[in-house]
């Protein structure tokens, strides 16, 4: 539920952004270099190539982005209210503002335009051009988008009606196809390159087309225009399908920067062409341009939506207010913006002063009018579905009624330093970890044991933030190991890592020390690790064991609070191993917590406070070394006897037998009973020994059981 509402917050923000971008776009239109007088309300005396380029870029995508989000919300509403409720709602929110808005705005716009054009022509404006005498011609002004929206609602309602008449099987097939199609297209980045093809084809078919204008604005006719209808219908339908899809938004949020990178590249090329050849004559360039334009539309739309999902998913009162205000602001902005443009048009000032002025002044008027006239009144009720009293009560109803995303709370209570909770991690089809829970407590050494391929290194990688789990939660020092500040508290010695062979040991330690907030002095690190004598040797010239020692020095140089040692003593001679063990004990005494993976069981037995045994990606046992022994409750019986090993294996209380020359080795769960029976059955039995099973036997028995 929360994730849903978070998503709606982000998409609301995107819709608001697209609309406010439209205001900024129109505010730039009086500064277009080379536009003949009369095309816009004003031709400013300080034209700007920069604003022309910026306007072009925003114009590529802002309406398509709007219709994409509109499609998303349309399906949401359709499924919430049903067809009848949907149309009642849309009638109030879209059709009424279209009609009422046009009636009020058209004369005002006409007045401002007349004033502006009179000023541009120095008091003697030419006669206004007549509307073209073709069927359907109508000056929709900037409200065309509401009209277009209504036509899209009609189209999608008709399509739904056809769909409803289909049989259940083809319906299911179509649904599955749409879902797989949309999520595949987004996941594989195909969408960016294909969604724009229909609009590109429509643009190529135009007899006259200026590159700068992009999708020609359908504001002169009630008859749907081809490129706009094709382009915006595609956007609307894809938005609708994204709402259907279970994972499309997640994919978009992940891919935001990929799509934005495509957007930047495509836009760069489009700008290049617009600068060199503004008029599109039919030919290869025009076709390529139309296609790249389609790519740019979708790269921007998907990228910006993804970025919003990624970064703006939490509730923000300010964003919510702006998003609510954006509809009114877009409806009302045109005469306001144009009036400021006309007023400022002949000022002897640079555009970089005038444009911000027009923008700030327009937004000030528009936000103020929203706050005072719209938000508390029936207009707000009409446009946004509710009105807010001007004087707000102590509790802001907006904040109270909107589900607030849950406060981030720290699940890592103070009692563990690092945890894996319910972790599942797959590599392709290979399950490395499955439902694993492991916890490292302060000041303890946790030995993680297991045969090769049990998932030990994967567990360590998760704690180091090198990989992320498919399910479950990883914490390190109370946060996510993905946060670098958490990782500053760790030291690590990894398996299969080679360091820079050209650098000397001292340099390697100095380099690693530079990453930490409060490292040990380099000489102290070298001394503690017992490698002062190796300090000036290049790493490439060290033996295998010496390399491990250097890596240990690098692991402890930052005074870690948690130390991860992945098979640290492989290849060490006895002396070096004992020095390392000593160092580990000192670190434990200083309060450092340590995770150790090892194949050497005596290492775990001599150092570990607790043991976790992994096999086939599961924790099959965990506890103190003694608990582990008790858990398996096995004792080892050994004697010289002529009894058959296979027969003894069948006795109750015997878990395994092994013949070793004259000696028979028995692992027993009930040693007393087995010894009694041995003595009874073989009177010649000699040299009987009974001892507690070590960790090695426990480990072998456990992993065999797991297998």
């Amino acid at each position, binding site marked *: 539920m929360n994730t849903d509402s978070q998503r709606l917050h982000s998409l609301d923000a995107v819709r608001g952004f697209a609309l406010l971008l439209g205001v900024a776009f129109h505010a730039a239109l009086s500064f277009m270099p080379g536009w003949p007088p009369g095309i816009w309300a004003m031709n400013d005396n300080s034209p700007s190539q920069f604003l022309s380029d910026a306007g072009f870029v925003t114009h590529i995508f802002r309406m398509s982005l709007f219709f994409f989000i509109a499609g998303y919300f349309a399906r949401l509403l359709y499924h919430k209210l049903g067809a009848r409720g949907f149309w009642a709602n849309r009638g109030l929110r879209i059709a009424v503002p279209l009609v009422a808005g046009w009636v009020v705005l058209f004369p005002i716009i006409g007045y401002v335009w007349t004033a502006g054009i009179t000023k541009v022509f120095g008091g003697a404006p030419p006669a206004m051009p007549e509307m073209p005498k073709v069927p359907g011609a109508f000056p929709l002004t900037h409200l065309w988008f509401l009209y277009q929206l209504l036509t899209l609602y009609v189209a999608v309602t008709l399509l739904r009606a056809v769909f409803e008449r289909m049989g259940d099987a083809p319906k299911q097939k179509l649904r599955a196809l749409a879902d797989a199609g949309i999520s595949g297209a987004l996941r594989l980045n195909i969408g960016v390159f294909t969604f724009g093809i229909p609009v590109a084809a429509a643009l190529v078919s135009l007899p006259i087309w200026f590159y700068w204008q992009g999708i020609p604005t359908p504001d002169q006719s009630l008859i749907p225009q081809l490129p706009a209808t094709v382009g915006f219908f595609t956007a609307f339908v894809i938005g609708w399908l994204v709402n259907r899809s279970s994972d499309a938004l997640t994919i978009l949020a992940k891919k935001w920067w990929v799509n934005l990178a495509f957007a930047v590249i495509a836009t760069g090329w489009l700008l290049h062409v617009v600068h*060199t050849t503004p008029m599109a004559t039919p030919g290869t360039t025009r076709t390529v341009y139309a296609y790249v334009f389609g790519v740019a539309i979708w790269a921007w739309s998907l990228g910006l939506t993804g970025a919003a999902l990624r970064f703006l998913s939490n509730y923000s009162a300010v964003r919510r207010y702006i998003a609510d205000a954006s509809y009114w602001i877009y409806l009302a902005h045109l005469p306001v913006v144009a009036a400021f443009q006309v007023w400022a048009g002949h000022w002897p000032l640079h555009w970089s002063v005038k444009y911000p002025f027009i923008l700030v002044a327009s937004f000030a008027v528009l936000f103020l009018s929203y706050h005072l006239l719209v938000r508390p009144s029936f207009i707000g009720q009409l446009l946004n579905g509710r009105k807010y009293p001007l004087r707000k009560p102590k509790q802001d109803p907006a904040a109270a009624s909107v589900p607030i995303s849950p406060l*981030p709370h720290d699940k*890592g209570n103070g009692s563990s330093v690092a945890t894996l909770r319910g972790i599942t991690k797959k590599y392709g089809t290979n399950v490395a970890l499955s439902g694993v829970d492991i916890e490292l407590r302060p000041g303890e050494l946790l030995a993680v044991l297991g045969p090769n391929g049990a998932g030990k290194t994967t567990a360590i990688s998760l704690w*180091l933030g090198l990989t992320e789990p498919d399910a479950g939660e990883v914490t390190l*020092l109370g946060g996510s190991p993905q946060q670098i500040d958490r990782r500053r508290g760790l030291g690590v010695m990894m398996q299969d*890592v080679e360091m820079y062979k050209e650098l000397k040991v001292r340099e390697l330690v100095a380099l690693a020390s530079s990453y930490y907030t409060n490292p040990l002095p380099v000489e102290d690190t070298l001394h503690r690790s017992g490698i002062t004598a190796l300090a000036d040797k290049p790493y490439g010239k060290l033996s295998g064991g010496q390399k491990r020692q250097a890596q240990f020095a690098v692991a402890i140089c930052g005074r870690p609070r948690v130390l991860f040692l992945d098979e640290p003593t492989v290849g060490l001679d006895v002396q070096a191993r004992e020095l390392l063990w000593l160092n580990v004990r000192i670190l434990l005494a200083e309060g450092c917590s340590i995770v150790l993976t090892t194949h050497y069981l005596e290492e775990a037995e001599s150092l570990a406070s607790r043991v976790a045994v992994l096999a086939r990606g599961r924790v099959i046992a965990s506890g103190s070394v003694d608990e582990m022994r008790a858990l398996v409750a096995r004792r080892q019986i050994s004697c010289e006897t002529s009894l058959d090993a296979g027969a003894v294996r069948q006795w109750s209380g015997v878990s395994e037998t092994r013949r070793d020359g004259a000696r028979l080795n028995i692992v027993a769960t009930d040693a007393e009973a087995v010894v009694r029976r041995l003595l009874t059955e073989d009177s010649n039995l000699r040299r009987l020994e009974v001892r507690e099973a070590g960790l090695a036997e426990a480990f072998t028995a456990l992993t065999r059981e797991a297998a």
Partner: protein
Amino acid sequence: MNALTLDTRSDLLPPRRALAAYLTETRFEFMRMLRNPTLVIPVVLVPLALYLLFAVVIAGEAIAKDASLGVYLFAAFAVMAVTMPALFGISASLALEREMGLMRLKRAQPAPPGSWLVAKIVCGVVFCVLAYLPMLAAAILAGTLPLDAGQIVLISLALIAGSIPFCALGLMIGALVKGSAAPGYANLIYLPGCYLSGMFFPLPASMHWQTPVWPQFHITQLAMYAADVTKHQHIPVQMAIAALVGFTVLFSAVAIWRLARKG
């Protein structure tokens, strides 16, 4: 995201220590380069030898008649000199370091996310300067670079700055492919660009539409503006700069993204 309640302040790297981490990383990267001179020699010698052959021996007379040809050829080979060490040096070393597991270790350790990036780019640029200076000296001595001192400084700055996107391209390739494959992929991207960008010979008009795709085109354009050769200026200088910045951002972003996931 979470755990705001815990005191993380003590683990934040203060700005001075962060700066020190960047400097240390760069210093050691540079020392590694100096201790490994075998890599330097071919990258410096190949463009220089080609330049002497084509510009001095073969085209020497033509340059005496048409000064802009001299600048054009100098720019072409100088672009080669400044981009090859950046691209090939960085892609190979990064790919190797990834194979060694070093990038995983650095990430866990935890190295500041940008430090290795800055270190590699700074050293890549220094390497490019080392490859560029002999060629500049040769061109001045042979008289095949008919520019005044100010223009020589400008074109040098343009070329050296232009090596940065190639450092980033090297990072991207090094981040995407494994050890020994890196030079192969680097060539696959680099060589077509040398010809299709019109760097070595002017292209017919029908091929102009695709030139902006190649970083080589933009760095050559930058050089043409620096040397004021209007004949070979095809796009506004702002666009060439914007494209080079764009390529740098794009390539580095891919490299960082990839390394953040795969190490």
